[in-house]
């Protein structure tokens, strides 16, 4: 249970366990890294939570306008994108598995697949943004869509929240893609280490979290109009 410091140095000199100086052993370092990632994801949930609260408030205030706004969405592209993102979660999960099994080439291939699927998602998202811009549906850039009275402000709130929340989601995707690219570069240059799998594991947790946010955004923005409770 208790190891004197001198003995620890010897363990490290063997190269059996490369751990940062503050940790006793690799297990401790791994569980610290994983707990840190979970806590970081908890902060992310609270951060997105504020925007979901705003969404709920305005959907309660403007149910008709939200249904109207939702009708402007391209459900087809949204559904395809959902499929792309969920598939990327699958490839990410397999990449984590491969890193745990020390299958380096599989891991690199699956990470690249995840990276590409993420880029496809962002591409489709960009296309959708462009369509909305062309249809003058961006509240802070050339909005002309004008049904009367309350529906107008309600629809503007809908599109404010749409761009805000999907935009923040896309920024998180970009951060995830940078992490994936770094993992691929490091994995191509050097052999897998003990610590590699925990890093891949943590990036995987982050990637799944970002996917999960989309799983809520998709029905909130694309499928509201289909909801029976919101009659026009």
């Amino acid at each position, binding site marked *: 249970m208790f190891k004197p410091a001198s003995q620890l140095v010897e363990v490290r000199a063997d190269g059996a366990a490369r751990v940062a100086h503050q940790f006793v052993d690799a297990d401790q370092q791994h569980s610290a890294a994983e707990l840190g990632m979970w806590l970081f994801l908890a902060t992310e949930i609270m951060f997105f939570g*504020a925007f979901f609260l705003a969404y709920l408030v305005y959907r309660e205030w403007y149910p008709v306008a939200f249904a109207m706004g939702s009708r402007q969405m391209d459900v087809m592209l949204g559904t395809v994108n959902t499929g792309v993102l969920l598939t990327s979660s699958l490839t990410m999960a397999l990449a984590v598995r491969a890193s745990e099994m020390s299958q380096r080439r599989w891991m690199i291939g699956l990470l690249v697949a995840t990276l590409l699927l993420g880029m496809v998602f962002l591409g489709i998202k960009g296309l959708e943004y462009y369509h909305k811009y062309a249809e003058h549906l961006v509240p802070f850039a050339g909005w002309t869509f004008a049904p009367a009275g309350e529906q107008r402000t309600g629809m*503007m709130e809908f599109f404010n929240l749409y761009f805000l929340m999907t935009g923040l989601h896309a920024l998180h995707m970009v951060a995830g893609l940078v992490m994936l690219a770094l993992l691929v570069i490091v994995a191509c240059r050097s052999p897998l280490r003990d610590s590699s799998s925990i890093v891949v594991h943590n990036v995987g947790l982050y990637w799944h979290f970002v996917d999960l946010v989309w799983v809520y955004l998709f029905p909130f923005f694309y499928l509201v109009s289909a909801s029976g409770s919101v009659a026009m």
Partner: protein
Amino acid sequence: MNGAVITTRKRNYLNASYTVRSWLLTHDHKRIGLLYLIGVTFFFVIGGLAAAVVRLELMTPRGDLTESETYNKLFTMHGITMTFFFLIPAIPAVLGNFLVPLMLGARDLAFPRLNLLSWYLYMLGGLMTMWAILAGGVDTGWTFYTPYSSTYSNTYVMATAVGVFVAGFSSILTGLNFIVTTHQMRCPGLTWFRLPLFIWSMYAASLIMVLATPVLAAALLLVGLERGLGIGIFDPAMGGDPLLFQHLFWFYAHPAVYIMVLPAFGVISELVACFSRRRPFGYAFIGYSSFAIAILGFLVWGHHMFVSGQSVYAGLIFSLLSFLVAIPSGIKVFNWTATLYKASISWETPMLYAFGFMGLFTMGGLTGLFLACLAIDVHVHDTYFVVAHFHYIMVGGTVMAFLGGIHFWWPKMTGRMYPESWARLSAILIFVGFNLTFFPQFILGYLGMPRRYHIYPEEFQVLNVMSSAGASILGVGYFFPLTYLVWSMFYGAVAPENPFGHTGLEWQTASPPPTDNFEQIPVVTQEAYSFGPDDALRGPSEEVISIVQAS
């Protein structure tokens, strides 16, 4: 890379290296704690100077020292600097950074580089805010209420909000680091119920930092986007809801009060135990009550909005929940008092601060109950009664505990003793000055003087002059420690390992500690605060925590 594990006795974290680079790129939690100490002291002075001008202006009923706009900027600058750049980081980032790994028997925090990053984010955020103040100031009050902040104010709201936003990440990273370290890096034998109470309260405060601060980030981001892009999230003219901002802001800013005061509770628990030579009465209850406060603290934000147009029924629930916070707070105060009962109390400076804390925090807490009561709040809302109430908690509570803690751990941090008689004198000055400053404000508020006005009816002048006079005494009281603590770093008596005879692991290593904290990883075999039967006279010995030697 790992050679530093073995150190000679004379090497410590301060003399390990003297270069500027070794300080600015350090991963050592103790050095980062000192960097934070420099930062919070700087911002405390800035915030204090703003308060001094405010008090000077309020000497007379007319606005003869500053314009109304300048006055608005001054109290905003005071509020923002003191809350975000002094009170929030003061105890966690200075004392917490220094003590958490030491108290856990660890070599460092779990993520040392993240810890250094958090200091840089804090300084970056603070300096951006200072720039905004120099460039022309900001006049929204520290609360950034919309739509004034998002649409109408013509001051540097954006730069200030970005500064606070950035500093928020430093708070998140510190909290995350403490939680992971407490879970993963306790030394052998150090079970949860053997932890010092300082760790319990720091853990509870860290939970709030991690879970509440992101909501502030979201709220400030929305204010920034509304100012920058004109989206109408909070603007009623564009279909938005200004109350939504208040909900988001107070969902952070009320728990933030507990980020400020929970670590202070932790410091006081240590001081009371040490200077009454006793295990705190009801150890587990003091620990649990920290968590109760952290959890309840998330459910009471609506009591800032009793007169904002929030539903009366929501007000009723928020009122009830706010009353409930008094229970865990009461548990703490009663348990500290019970610890003192028939104990052998000594009166060193840190204990004077602890006594000051207990009295002032109790008054602050009890007046909080007045404010949680819906009918009374309608009368005293936005008056000096509120100002007095939260200064009793923030200054009477957190600042007293911070100074008590700084004195208590000063020998460990610097290896030098502070001058006892000067320190006692300034502790008493601060207590007297504090009460003279803020007690009259309770009366002013009850008589109806609103906060944030610099012109007031003549009948309020006597009480305002008393308050300003008290502030000058308080200022002198703060100036003394600033001077003699710096002096003591060079000329103070050399401190022994454990000058106050306390039991924590941090007292079992050298003063100042080596870079890796302990020459051998300690093993804990007893409960926390195991003062032996004779300890009333001579303090604990090595029996309390044995350092197991390798065979």
